[in-house]
């Protein structure tokens, strides 16, 4: 397991207390799980993803990520409609371990209300929360 100081957390994304992240990309947002989450889960063997066109509210379960020892639910950081999912995870779920904030992204959504991003945490706030864990 990584020490908190070893975590690789980008500055330009927003974090949730359930260890998902969201990054605005034009009109859309990209969603994934954090370096901390993938490290805690261990080797990820399966990611169950929603279908494009599905809509979820903020905090709603939109999929699951399964490691060799646990299954965790994925909660959407902000509400919206799924535009696409990262289909390379079907064959290579280990991308979530290797690159949780890059190639291991999970879904791309069209936010219902981009303003919901404001309620999420910055990197520093997320780190503070982790230190308190």
């Amino acid at each position, binding site marked *: 397991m990584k020490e908190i100081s070893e975590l690789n957390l980008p500055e330009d994304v927003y974090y949730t207390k359930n260890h998902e992240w969201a990054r605005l990309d034009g009109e859309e947002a990209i969603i994934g799980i954090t370096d901390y989450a993938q490290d805690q889960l261990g080797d990820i063997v399966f990611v*169950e993803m929603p279908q494009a066109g599905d809509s979820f509210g903020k905090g709603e379960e939109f999929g699951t990520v*399964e*490691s*060799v*020892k646990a*299954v965790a*639910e994925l909660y959407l950081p902000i509400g919206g409609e799924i535009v696409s999912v990262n289909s390379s995870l079907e064959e290579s779920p280990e991308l979530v371990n290797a690159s949780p904030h890059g190639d291991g992204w999970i879904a791309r959504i069209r936010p219902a209300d981009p303003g919901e991003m404001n309620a999420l945490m910055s990197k520093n706030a997320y780190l503070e929360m982790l230190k308190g864990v």
Partner: protein
Amino acid sequence: MRYLPHTDEDISAMLEAVGVKCLDDLFPTVPESCRFIKEQTIPGPFTEWELNGHMDLLAKKQGVSSGYRRFIGAGSYEHYIPASVSTLLGRSEFVTPYTPYQPEISQGTLQAIYEYQTLVARLLGMEVANASLYDGASALAEALLMAVRITGKRKVAVSSAIHPHYRRVAETYFRPSGIEVVTLPCLENGRTDVATIDQFQDLAAVAVQSPNFFGCIEDLKGICERCDSNDLLSVISFTEPLAYGLLKNPGRQGAHIVCGEGRSFGLPLWFGGPGLGMFACRTKYMRNMPGRLIGKALDREGKSGFVLTLATREQHIRREKATSNICTNSSHCALAAVIYMATLGGTGMRELATLNRDKSEYLKKELRKAGFRIPFDAPTFNEFVVEFPTGFEQTHKRLLDKGIVAGLPLASFYPAMAGKYLLCVTETVSRNDMDELVREIRS
């Protein structure tokens, strides 16, 4: 594990340690009305030979003893059990089939289950089979629950030609869960009227049994295609897996989930059980499959070994989101089945299935010659329905007194089917037995 009973001294010491006077003092929280207060009237101990004599007497009262000739199946089929099954089952390595909490320590247990899964998947023509469930009835209920999970729809259609006990078990599962079960009627030929599914909206799955409770072989290809075009799952149940030694298997006909009873494979006809729930599906539904799965993997040094795989679907990890509350399997029964299947092999399975079919066709033909009507036209495997004239109950009873079980009266399950009897012929029945049955029925 040895059985070490507590002595009176042990019990006194424990009672003293917890600070009560007698065992009854441990149960004050159980309401008096729920307790059995009376003295238990259990007879005193028998000697070993008295006990054997007592059990022999009890056994003679049952139709399963060797004094009877049975023409009854209806979910429990009498088949010869090769000596290899009982010999290997009795090996001490297998006598405790419990999978330990570190399952990979028991490579032999896991390998046996892996081989069982492989042979079940091949027999049924499916991509993946689990380590087994309790019996055919609960396997059907679990298959329907699985279809509900996959589709998100809460209504299932079940053929009225599925074993009535299986349907009751499924209904018991569903009653508290609010899942609706609709029943599909049968056609004149004894097969399920699958066209009726078109009238239902929002079905998760259609379940049929083949051969069905009347022995009739269903048109699985047609049923599976209709399910596909209605965008719902086909669940194929069975009570007699031996049929697939001869018939085209459900997988090749497009089934999504196949489940049934495996007792025919090396398990005796005990009174009601235990059974063996066989369960298989297509790979794409694997993560929604109930029960355990054994997989083959490589260790760090590249040596192959067996592992408990996909355990994350199970309730000890997923809790309320588990695919099923079943986290176990009928391991010892599955072991009997895999030894049985391996003993017969593909060729033996086919020969035995052919023998069952041919013998039952012989009896069907002889009964027809004797003037009795075979009401259903659909082809059958080792069971079929015969219509006997009014008053046959007397004949049935007379034959029973002579040690011949002349089939199952269907009216006890289907009130509209008075006079119709379900007869079964397996390899254990001789031509003489069948000729005598026909002679006795006619006399």
